């Protein structure tokens, strides 16, 4: 269940909640100018002590409290004022307080996305913008997806297509919604038989496709130096099986979750020596799920933006 979590987290939560400078992520409205570069790094720690087995929330003494740490370096580049390139690859480690299974760690998947602003126009007391993001990701290490909940990812390729619509009042208050379709491929496992509501004689598991929803309301404060936001995010798998009672999860599961969060980012606009630098912090709590851990996450990061 974690697995999904990580995967989605990387491509959707991290990239979307972590604002790069100007909150440059696949799921927000902001764009960098041509030939601008942004480098960012973040650290996130998350844990859960309950998980959904199918739709039933439960505990498991042989997991106890599950924890996951993520270090995420990221890069963004303005190809043009209207087209940006984003890339990032997380290093993830997992552990649990209960049981005797060893945690996992390693580099997960390289995510690359292109974001384009298709529309941006003054309408009434603010601006309407519409953006789209096309992303894909692929595993960059030999981690095992079939080791849940400890596995660090789903170890499959994923293609994302996202639409983002925002209205931002001239006074800095904004509301944003985003919708994405996530197409996943298959994950290679280290056995050639598994049960998924029936026998499968294969070293490959189908990873279910998913829909991803975002909603956010926020404001730019302090002369556009501080961005504060409350958000909602959900990933819902379209297919997949449920974890069987007291059994381990696997990448074929229908893994879904809904979470709420807070996000803040401060830009050091007024200090000439560190102009382009920003710091950010966020918090999120999963409030509903299926075949997933009930995660609570906290993260912090730093970003630096400059022009070539």
């Amino acid at each position, binding site marked *: 269940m974690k697995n999904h979590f990580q995967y989605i987290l990387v491509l959707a939560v991290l990239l979307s909640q972590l604002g790069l400078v100007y909150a440059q992520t696949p799921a927000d409205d902001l764009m960098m100018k041509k030939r601008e570069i942004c480098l960012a790094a973040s650290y996130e720690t998350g844990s859960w002590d309950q998980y959904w087995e199918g739709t039933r929330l439960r505990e498991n003494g042989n997991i106890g409290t599950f924890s996951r740490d993520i270090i995420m370096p990221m890069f963004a580049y303005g190809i043009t004022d209207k087209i940006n390139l984003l890339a990032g690859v997380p290093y993830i480690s997992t552990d649990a307080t209960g049981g005797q299974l060893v945690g996992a760690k390693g580099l997960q998947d390289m995510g690359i996305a292109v974001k384009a602003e298709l529309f941006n126009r003054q309408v009434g007391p603010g601006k309407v913008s519409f953006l789209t993001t*096309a992303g894909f990701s692929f595993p960059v290490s030999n981690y095992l997806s079939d080791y849940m909940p400890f596995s660090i990812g789903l170890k499959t390729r994923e293609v994302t297509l996202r639409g983002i619509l925002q209205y931002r009042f001239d006074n800095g208050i904004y509301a944003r919604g985003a919708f994405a379709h996530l197409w996943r491929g298959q994950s290679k496992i*280290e056995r050639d038989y598994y049960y998924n509501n029936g*026998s499968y004689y294969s070293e490959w598991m189908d990873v279910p496709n998913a829909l991803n929803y975002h909603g956010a309301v926020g404001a730019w404060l302090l002369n556009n130096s501080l961005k504060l936001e409350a958000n909602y995010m959900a990933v819902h798998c379209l297919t997949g099986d449920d974890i069987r009672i007291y059994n381990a999860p696997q990448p074929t599961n229908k893994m879904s979750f809904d979470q709420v969060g807070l996000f803040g980012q401060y830009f050091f606009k007024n200090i000439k020596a560190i102009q382009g630098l920003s710091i950010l912090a966020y918090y999120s709590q999963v409030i509903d799920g299926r075949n997933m851990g009930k995660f609570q996450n906290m993260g912090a990061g730093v970003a630096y933006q400059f022009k070539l």
Partner: protein
Amino acid sequence: MKNKWIRIILAFGLVYAFSCEKDLLTHADYADYIFASLDEKGGSWKPILLTGGNQISIPTPKDVTSDDYKNELAALKTAMANLTSDQKKAVEYWTNNPVLRWNEIALELAAKYNIIPQPNADGTYTLPDPANPSKYPQFPFAHPPYTSRALAYLSVAQFDGLISAWHYKYTFNRKAPSDVDNSIVPAYAKTSLPAYPADGAVVATASRDILTAMFPLEKDYLAAKATEHMSSLTWAGVNVKSDIDAGATIGVEVAKVAMARARTDGMSKAQAPRPVSDSIKAAALKRFGWQWDNQETPVRPVGLAPLFGKVKMWNVPNVEIVRPGPPPAPGSAEFNTAAKELQDIAKKITPEQRKIANWWSDGLGTYTPPGHWNRYVKDLLIEYKFNPLRSARTFAYLNMAVMDAGVSCWDAKYYYHYPRPIQTIPGFKTILGTPNFPAYTSGHSTFSAAAAEVVAYVFPNEAQKARNWANEAAESRILGGIHYRFDAEVGITQGKNVAQYSLNRAKQDGAE
């Protein structure tokens, strides 16, 4: 401009993501085939439980010139002329060697039911109750010993039933429909095998009844499978109704004989109650100075099937004659070497080692190690084009040897009651879950070595490969951190020894 970019990226991405999508097989991919031999003398082979091929009686069939037969033949032709697409699919699915399909169904049920009971809210555990199978935790928990036994009874019943079928086929020599009426084109490769009784029907009812006894909640599912299977024999043009009825009778009767043995083989007592389990543990502590303790949270008070070692064996006269000697005491130099090896592996496991550990893991939710070996053997039976009788014989000796290996292994496990690495090595963590039973000897090693010996006997060209697999399966438990090397090595020797008893019987059954 930007739209073009997006389109290009997306198109590239979709192609990239899905360029190597694999078809995921849900059952063995084989079609009907020409049998390597027909084993015309198979009716005289010595069965496992029946006294001979003639113990179960069936009616003398009507002659092919009789009106009754002609009516049946006409019904067959009508059915064949009006097949629906589902009926055609059924014909393709069942093939002319349905022994393989029923084995596959058994493996799927094993995987479905190989789910360990969860703790209750108060930290206690409830065990599956065969008298109330649908109440959680459902009956059965198809763990490796349970599955080895289910497969053994299934295969033995199929084998004995087919010996009986072969006996009557060559006693009565009633022709196949297509030999009576050459306008009939059977769906399967033509053979000169007499049609009465239908071997497919023997397999269908015997398998249905054994598996229904082993997996009672699957009664309806299995009945539907058997009905479709038997109907498919007519749809395929290989058997008329009286062929099928006679075959079905043999299957039902042989399953009764097998289940009569099963009811009294001691399995119902294998999951011993707490006081018995405690006394077994105390005896080991007194005898050897050590004991295994479950390390789960909450602790499972009773190990898995402590008295499986007392279950009636197929071919070993007495479990104690195959019991290995004791393991090295925890803390001894030999033990410390073995423990250090596990810690060294855990510190820096290679991708190859990890894969071996996972490949053979066959843990909860899977068809178990006995199932894994059945799957390999199924693939060999297809490759070597074995007929149903010889396929059933192979599975019967395989699964008797594997179950006997399990009984012997469980005898050693609870006699020695040896602690697992996570119990003896402080803070030790593993990549595989540690099962709920003592360490010595390794079940995977014992099951696999026994299976490999049967493979080596039946398929001499595959002997080396099979023994390498068994050694790899044994090694996998060391790499996974859940067995010491001595558990695995002694388990391999034990499995080989146990298998000899089944092979000695096989060599005298008349099939060579």
